[in-house]
Structures are given as structure tokens and as C-alpha cells.
């Protein structure tokens, strides 16, 4: 393989890995925000546990998503310097806004949410997470403005071979940015919905009331069952809204995309990916409506035990599907743009750095190997955390309790306000 091919392969693999994290971050965010707000308003235990459980999954996923994003950001300078030299002023501007404003705020706010848990007023704490979601979405949008420019370059002029912004509004309102952002957002909500539904279905199957041989009642038996029923409902709503948004905005993209061009260079991969994506999206819309109808009077939880357990098992097995389809979507978009990096302006082969193929191969092995390892480990940890349920959550736990569970000595426990002989005697941690 040439250095060009290796640089492209490296970018594609890193972008795909990064996007797996993005799907869950953007899809789960609004649900955690709603749960946190309901906890702040009602003070009910079920919402506290739900916020901590889904918040912890959100957090562990987000943290490794950052790492993958950082690796990705440096790819432009390392392997595609020609893109920055020619279009840096246009393409780099939204990325600079992303890193300096949107992501900067998102990450710092999330840190405040985690580490200010026992210190901030409950309403402010809930508001912080809404701001995390808002800045996260803004961050995704700025990235799509940069990506949209590559797909459909508008609002610029070339002077002596260097692109300059002439119309900022056109750059932002570019359908390749705006409509595609809504499509991506829809896909993220679908992924969030699948995770909420899949995990809740697994938990409910294990629950003595819903998972047993008898039919469950209309009212949940305890807080735990209430939590998973509510999560299931939230997941179905999120997934259905996401599917409608993803399909609506997805088909709307055909107004500016020339699909014949897109399929021209890689007919097999792009054509197949596109067909799978569209088929999957239509099925999710259909399945989403069926599940939503089953929520009427809690029918979903009162199905015959055998039907219910079979359905819940299927929903749990389907959990990874939107992640696979999300990657296929990017294959369609990015491969469909080739041989251009900026359509009609710059060819990919003309922007690649003059690093030797061996150097690019080494960085591919190091970075892709590392990121795929981290992604697999992260996925495994998320599965374990999900399988543990809402017991022993570390996020939002009093520090003394966490260290006590860890077998800390008396000195450490006293520092965190927990009496060494046991938690029962510990002074009440405020809120």
C-alpha cells in the first residue's frame, strides 16, 4: 500500500472508532439531562438512581471518546497538510471554534457536573448537564460544518490557490452541514435508544417480577423495576424520535447530493452500505412505532411471559446494530466523496504529507491498535457496568462510602467524613 492509502485507511479507522463513542454521547445525553432534572424537581429515589446509572455509562463512554477525538484531530496536520495549506482558513475555522469554544465548555461543564456533585445546589447541577448536552451538540455541529464544506464547498473564494471565507452564513447554512447534522443527530438518538432499550430489557428479564414466569402487574413491583421500565420507555421514545429525524433528514440530503457520483468510485461498498442503512432505518421506524403502541397501558410489560422474554432477549441482542449502521453511513459519505477531499477543488492524493509509507504504517499500527484496544476494553467495561445494574454506583456516591468499599484505612475515611468502624455511624453527607 502507498502512503496515501495508508493515511486514508488510518483516518477512516480512527474516525470510525471515534464515532462509536459520539453516537452514545449524543444519544444518551438528553435522557440523562431529563432524568437529572426530574430528580432535582421531585427528589425521588428512582430518578436519582437512574441519573447515576446512565450518567456513569455516559461518563465512561465520553472520557474515551475524547481520547479518540484528540488522536483524530491531529491526523490533519500529520497526514493531510495540503488540506490545511489550501483550505485551512475555511476548514480550520469551524474546527477551531469547536475546540476553543464548544468542546472546551462541554468538557469543563461535565467535569463540574461530576466533581461538584455534593457541592452544587441540585437545580444548578441539573442545569449543568443540559449545558453539557447543548455544547456537545454545538460541538458536533461545528465538526459537520467543517465536513460539510468538504462535501459541498460554499461561501469561499480561491485566491492564489488558497481558500478564503467570503460568506460565513453560507458556510454555516450549507445543507451539507445543516441537514446532515440533523441526520447524524437522529442516528445518535437511535443508538442511545437502542442502548437504553437493550440494557433495560436485559435488566427486566432478570427481575423477579417482570422476568418471572407469571405475568407482571401494571404497577412496577419496586424501585429497581420502576427504573428499568422508565428507562425502557425513555429508550423507545428516544429511538423513535431519532429514527424519524434520521430518515427525514437522511432523505432530505438527496436534494443536494448526487448519489450517482457518490456510488461511482466504490460502487460495491457505497451501494451496499447505503442499502443496508436505508433498510435498517425503515425497520427501526416500524419497530419503534410498534414498541411505542405497546407502551399504552404498559402492555409491553404485561405480555405473556414467553413472548415478553423472547422480545426482551431480541432487543438486548440488537443493541450493537445502530453502531454498525452508523459506521456504514460514514463510509457512504466519505468514500462517496472520493477522489476529492474538497469536492471539485482538491484531490485527496494531492494533500497527503511526504512522510514515507513505513512511517505512516508505524503510526497506523500504534494509533489504530491503541484506539481499537481502548474501544474494545471500554465496551467491555460498559457491559460490565450495565450488568451490575443500579447497585454500587460510584458516580454520585459519598466519597467516604467509595473508599470504605475499597478497604481504606481510618485516616482516609475520617478525611472524607466516614467513621472508620462503619458507614452507619458516618455523619450525614449533605444531600
Amino acid at each position: 500500500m502507498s502512503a496515501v492509502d495508508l493515511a486514508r485507511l488510518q483516518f477512516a479507522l480512527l474516525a470510525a472508532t471515534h464515532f462509536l463513542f459520539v453516537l452514545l454521547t449524543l444519544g444518551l445525553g438528553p435522557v440523562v439531562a431529563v432524568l437529572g432534572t426530574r430528580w432535582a424537581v421531585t427528589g425521588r429515589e428512582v430518578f436519582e438512581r437512574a441519573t447515576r446509572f446512565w450518567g456513569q455509562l455516559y461518563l465512561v463512554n465520553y472520557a474515551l471518546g475524547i481520547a479518540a477525538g484528540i488522536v483524530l484531530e491531529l491526523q490533519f496536520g500529520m497526514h493531510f497538510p495540503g488540506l490545511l495549506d489550501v483550505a485551512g482558513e475555511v476548514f480550520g475555522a469551524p474546527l477551531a471554534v469547536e475546540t476553543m469554544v464548544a468542546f472546551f465548555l462541554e468538557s469543563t461543564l461535565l467535569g463540574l457536573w461530576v466533581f461538584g456533585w455534593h457541592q452544587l445546589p441540585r437545580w444548578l447541577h441539573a442545569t449543568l448537564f443540559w449545558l453539557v448536552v447543548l455544547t456537545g451538540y454545538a460541538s458536533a455541529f461545528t465538526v459537520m460544518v467543517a465536513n460539510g464544506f468538504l462535501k459541498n464547498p460554499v461561501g469561499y473564494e480561491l485566491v492564489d490557490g488558497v481558500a478564503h471565507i467570503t460568506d460565513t452564513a453560507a458556510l454555516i447554512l450549507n445543507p451539507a452541514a445543516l441537514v446532515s447534522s440533523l441526520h447524524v443527530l437522529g442516528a445518535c438518538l437511535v443508538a442511545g435508544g437502542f442502548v437504553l432499550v437493550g440494557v433495560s430489557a436485559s435488566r427486566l428479564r432478570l427481575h423477579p417480577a417482570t422476568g418471572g414466569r407469571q405475568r407482571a402487574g401494571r404497577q412496577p413491583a419496586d424501585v429497581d423495576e420502576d427504573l428499568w421500565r422508565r428507562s425502557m420507555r425513555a429508550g423507545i421514545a428516544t429511538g423513535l424520535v431519532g429514527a424519524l429525524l434520521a430518515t427525514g433528514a437522511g432523505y432530505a440530503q438527496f436534494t443536494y447530493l448526487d448519489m450517482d457520483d457518490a456510488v461511482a468510485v466504490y460502487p460495491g461498498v457505497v451501494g451496499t452500505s447505503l442499502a443496508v442503512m436505508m433498510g435498517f432505518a425503515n425497520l427501526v421506524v416500524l419497530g419503534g412505532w410498534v414498541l411505542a403502541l405497546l407502551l399504552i397501558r404498559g402492555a409491553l410489560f404485561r405480555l405473556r411471559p414467553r413472548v415478553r422474554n423472547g422480545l426482551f432477549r431480541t432487543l438486548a441482542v440488537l443493541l450493537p446494530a445502530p453502531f454498525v449502521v452508523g459506521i456504514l453511513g460514514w463510509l457512504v459519505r466519505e468514500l462517496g466523496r472520493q477522489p476529492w477531499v474538497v469536492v471539485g477543488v482538491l484531490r485527496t492524493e494531492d494533500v497527503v504529507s511526504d512522510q514515507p509509507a513505513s512511517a505512516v504504517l508505524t503510526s497506523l499500527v500504534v494509533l489504530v491498535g491503541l484506539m481499537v484496544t481502548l474501544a474494545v476494553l471500554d465496551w467491555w467495561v460498559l457491559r460490565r457496568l450495565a450488568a451490575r445494574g443500579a447497585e454500587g454506583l460510584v458516580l454520585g456516591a459519598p466519597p467516604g462510602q467509595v473508599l470504605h468499599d475499597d478497604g481504606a484505612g481510618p485516616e482516609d475515611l475520617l478525611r472524607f467524613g466516614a467513621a472508620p468502624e462503619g458507614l452507619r455511624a458516618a455523619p450525614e453527607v449533605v444531600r
Partner: protein
Amino acid sequence: MTAAVWGVLLTVLLAGWALLDGAVQGTGAALGSAPTGAERRVRLAAVGPLLLAGEVWLVAAAGVLVGAFPHAESALAAAGYPVLVALVASWAARDAGLWLRSRRASAVWRSAWDRVIVVASTVLSAAFGALLGVVWGSVWAAAGLAVTFVLLVRLHGAAVVARRLGTTARAPLWLTSVAVLSPVLVTVVAAWPALMHGAVSVSALAALGGIVLAALPALVVVQVAAWWLVARPLGRRDVVFF
């Protein structure tokens, strides 16, 4: 905003990263010296709120490079290619170690991640120092700054942890803070002409500057709130997550 103002912003971002994330790197690199698992968690809790609030500074600095000095960035990437690979790889590994180490109770799991944290934190500091050395344009500068930065962040991390635990550190916090900032400041001053040469057009810098200035109050407020979380002694209202 002119190229010079952008250059100052870049300097502030790099210096801020050295100061905030340096404390996390130093604590991570010295994690092996903590005798018990609980002691390690207490140390990580002491610098915990600095992780998310600190690493955004280097991400933002990279954004300034891409947005305002794209030609300088591609030149730096070409000259420092292997160092950049080491930097991002160790950064990712360090973060994975911090977030994942306490997610399972198994002693094997935790000690394996602790080793990752120690090695990756050290490599991260070394790679950043070496990248500053690449700007100076000599292998000796790269090696020297790599070693210097590793040693300085160790002292700095220890000073921050000592401040939060109410113990005495080898060097006071103000001194270690100045020490981790100085290699960044000196390097930027030396590289200033090349940096200005690698800037984009004045109109683009102005438009970008408007957006950043508009967001500046919000950026300052959230950062100050994050520092407020670490300004007090470690206690019962803190969070032990790492």
C-alpha cells in the same frame, strides 16, 4: 484580533495546559510511590477535577494552531511526526487508565491500569517537552526539554496533592507553577517569528476572534468554577471517581 493576539492566546493555552494537566501528569507518574490502593485513589481524587478542565487547554491550543496558524501546524507536524504520535498515544492511554482503573474491584485490573497510568503520564510529559524541543530545532533540545518537563511536572503534581491533603511538599506550589510554565514561555518567544509567518489572513483571524471573544466570559466562568473545586482541602464533599 491580529496574529500577535492569537499568538498570545496560543501561549496562554499551552501554559494553562502545562499548569493544570501537568499536575495530573505528575500525580499519575508518581502513582507507584503510593503504598496502598486507597492512598492512590486519594491522590487521584486530589487532582481529579483538573483532568477534564485541564486537557481541554491543549485541545484548544491545537484548535488555535489549525484555525489561526495552519501553516505552522503542518510544519510542526512534519518535523515532529514521531513525537506527535507518542504524545497522542500516551495521552489516550493515560486517560483510559484514569477512567477505567476503578471501574472494577479486581486487584490485577487496578494494578495493570496503574502501571499504564505511570508509564503513559511520564511519556506524555516527555513528549510535550520533546515537542517544545522540536520547535527549537535540535535533538539535544528535544531530549533535554523532555527530561526537564518530566521532572518539573513530578514536583508540580506533588505540590498540588500536598496542598489538598494539607501536607508539606518538596517545593511550594507557586514555585512549581512558575517552573512548569517557563519552558513553554521561552519556547514561544523563540519561535515567535516562524509562528507569525504561519498565520492565516487578517480577515479570517478577525472573524474567528469575534466568536472566541464572545464566548470568553463563559469559558472563564466554567474554568474558575473548576479551579474552585480544587482550591480547598480534600474532604467529604469531594468526589472519588478515579
